[in-house]
């Protein structure tokens, strides 16, 4: 009896895959990317409005007076900073909010149960953060295009630094999401870590004009290298050596990636 039923309805078989569960990785990426596309108007409009406001306020505050930075106009200097800030902000907040929200609703088990390795989980989140960040960065860049002049000297460098910065903040977002148990924690990470880090990175002023101790601090800030790389690629004006910048960015990604991977493997604050 049971045999005949079993014969008519084939039992679901385990899907077999090689060393990497590509389908699972892609599904996690699509799930997170879907959060962005579902409300794309709000998700795009927010960073665009914020960037345009910063841009307008800076132009107006300077008024007709001359911008004392040789070799680059104010608009060209500030636009790449706003692009990179939009990318990083999105990468950090989307992953951390997603993980924390799923923790509260209990939907995080949908990420922890499937046959995804710890590395695949981390990469699924961080790569979706990078891709959504890049979409937002592109849209912000297009919206600022009428006010800034992009030389677009080095497209691969722009992409490398923008994606490297996005990935780094995506990985940090996974870390913040895993660490947070309440929205207070998430907000604190954003206000007391992300905003100071991104603001003190030569966003709105050249690092060379800062006092010496501040220059040392900025030189330790990976966001500075991502921003400087994007600015160098877009406008040709850079402060840091791009090889050094790329090395720092890749090194930071590997380091933070390894830490988050280990924490995910241990189930730090995500598994009971």
């Amino acid at each position, binding site marked *: 009896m049971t045999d005949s039923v079993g014969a008519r309805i084939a039992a679901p078989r385990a899907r077999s895959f090689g060393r990497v569960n590509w389908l699972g990785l892609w599904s996690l990426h699509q799930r997170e990317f879907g959060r962005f596309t579902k409300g794309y108007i*709000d998700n795009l409009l927010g960073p665009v409005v914020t960037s345009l406001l*910063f841009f*307008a306020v800076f132009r107006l505050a300077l008024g007709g007076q*001359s911008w004392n930075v040789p070799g680059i106009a104010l608009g060209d200097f500030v636009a790449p900073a706003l692009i990179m800030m939009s990318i990083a902000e999105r990468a950090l907040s989307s992953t951390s909010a997603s993980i924390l929200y799923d923790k509260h609703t209990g939907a995080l088990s949908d990420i922890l149960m499937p046959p995804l390795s710890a590395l695949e989980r981390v990469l699924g989140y961080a790569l979706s953060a990078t891709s959504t960040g890049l979409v937002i960065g592109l849209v912000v860049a297009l919206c600022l295009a009428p006010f800034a002049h992009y030389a677009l000297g080095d497209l691969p460098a722009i992409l490398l630094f923008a994606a490297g910065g996005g990935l780094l903040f995506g990985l940090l977002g996974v870390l913040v999401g895993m660490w947070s148990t309440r929205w207070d924690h998430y907000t604190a990470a954003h*206000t007391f870590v992300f905003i100071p880090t991104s*603001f003190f990175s030569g966003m709105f002023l050249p690092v060379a004009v800062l006092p010496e101790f501040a220059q040392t601090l900025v030189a330790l800030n990976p966001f500075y290298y991502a921003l400087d790389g994007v600015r160098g690629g877009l406008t040709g004006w850079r402060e840091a050596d791009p090889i050094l910048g790329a090395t720092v960015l890749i090194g930071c990604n590997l380091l933070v990636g390894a830490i988050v991977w280990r924490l995910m493997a241990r189930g730090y604050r995500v598994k009971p």
Partner: protein
Amino acid sequence: MPVMTPPASNPTSSAATTPAVRHFGPVNWVGLWTLYLKEVRRFAKVATQTILAPLVTTLLFFAIFTLALGRAVQNVGGVSFPEFLGPGLIMMAMVQNAFANTSSSLVIAKIQGNIVDLVMPPLSPAELTFALAAGGLTRGIAVGITVGIVIALLVPIHIHDVFFVLFHALAASLMLSLLGILGGLWSEKFDHIAAVTNFVITPLSFLSGAFYSAERLPGIWHTVAHFNPFFYMIDGFRYGFIGHADGSLTAGLAVLTLANIALYALIHRLFAIGYKLRP
């Protein structure tokens, strides 16, 4: 089968006094004070988020703008750039936090369902409006004082006219507190109130002249700026410190007073009809 017995009445309960209906006059002072205290304790409990976070953000703005533009912009409105910027940033922090207090209180209460604790008690629409608005006003002033003290350590702050400082601080915080109630009543999701904050409140406060003198704006934008009520808040408040105003001070006093009266009446009406509160 167990015998079903009616619950035995406790012989002592008849002896103890049953709770009596509390009587109060035209104003439910206890209820008003309770709701106000609840609103204040709600933000005081998470002071890191509600006081310290705005302080850090404001100081960052101050540092960035002063460092980036302080050398290029020598004189604005008759004073140095940091002295010009300070009052504007204090006002921006006050109004954004007054708005955040009432709007988040109402939206969270709606989403969690504890909005019934606001609608059920014997509080009149006037008492609801007053207590909520006073809670937001308190947060705005608390943030303003905190930010003001720290800014005063960084730049010399002289008070030119204390009336304008106090009037604009109170009127602007109250106005944004009322706008926060309006936004909170209208919103059904966090997305709605986030959209109001991002697309209405933040742009109006950024473009209010906190960072630049409105006299500098080109042509049409100069006129447009005078239609932004946030412009009068910051302009009058800054006049109280530096003794220089970009627009008309009388117009500012009138705009803020009328806007507060109109908003107060509107919100009183919305509470009275139970707009988006009652099924």
